């Protein structure tokens, strides 16, 4: 099985780290795209936290060695060289577009948590309950937009995902050019000051995991 870490353009070398399960890294080239892989016996790699971190270390080490880089999702392997080649060839155009988009940028993550899980409204009728619930979800959506849009305006691209918990008001990823990083961070601080009741968690810079094409599951 051939395990894939990342797809890159103008890769200048491989980082001095081992891959998943301690496997040495290798390179392949398909349609002008550089692939970073490792070879494994059998069809499975155990999905431990250590394996996830090994994957992440490889990607991290590639960032400074590539002109543009798309991380692969964890746990993706291919039967053989032909299967890997087929998968890349079928997507070469969209992969090139995605590489052009992320070139030179880093990803910044911003999560915003609501102050309190709002208590269910005291209701006298089912209708009042439904109306209160609707008003609350509209308010949540309005607030999420109010936080997301000014940040997206400073980014080359941005994505928003629905929160994993009701308290997770905003879960955004922003593709930011290095020259805009200070302005972006400053804007996050401003929003934080304007919304002292909310908790902001800003992380990065990350490799552009959230801007690599590949299904929203």
């Amino acid at each position, binding site marked *: 099985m051939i395990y894939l870490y990342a797809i890159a353009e103008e890769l200048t070398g491989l980082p001095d780290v081992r891959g998943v399960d301690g496997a040495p890294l290798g390179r392949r080239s398909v349609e002008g795209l550089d692939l970073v892989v490792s070879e494994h016996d059998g069809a499975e790699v155990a*999905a431990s936290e250590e394996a*996830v971190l090994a994957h992440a270390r490889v990607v991290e080490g590639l960032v400074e060695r590539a002109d543009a880089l798309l991380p692969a999702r964890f746990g993706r392997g291919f039967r053989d060289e032909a299967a890997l080649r087929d998968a890349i060839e079928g997507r070469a155009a969209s992969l090139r577009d995605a590489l052009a988009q992320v070139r030179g940028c880093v990803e910044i993550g911003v999560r915003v948590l609501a102050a309190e899980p709002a208590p269910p409204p005291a209701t006298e009728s089912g209708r009042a309950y439904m109306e209160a619930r609707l008003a609350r979800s509209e308010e949540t959506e309005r607030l999420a937009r109010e936080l997301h849009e000014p940040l997206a305006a400073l980014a080359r691209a941005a994505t928003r995902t629905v929160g994993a918990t009701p308290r997770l008001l905003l879960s955004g990823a922003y593709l930011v050019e290095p020259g805009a990083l200070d302005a972006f961070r400053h804007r996050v601080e401003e929003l934080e000051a304007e919304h002292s009741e909310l908790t902001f968690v800003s992380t990065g810079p990350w490799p552009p995991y959230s801007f690599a094409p590949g299904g929203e599951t």
Partner: protein
Amino acid sequence: MTSVPERPLEQQITLLELIDRVLNKGVVLTGDVTLSVADVDLVYVGLRVLLASVGTLERLGE
């Protein structure tokens, strides 16, 4: 003397944000083999729990 409670929490968030990205983002190609992810769900649940607790911890610190 460093601030004891904040730092480990910050590091944990960074770690879990990283794991979330590696597991749930990134290029997916058709025709690939999906590997066993039984343990991975547990890691992801950890992220949700931690995020939910961040606000609570900050309020306690005030």
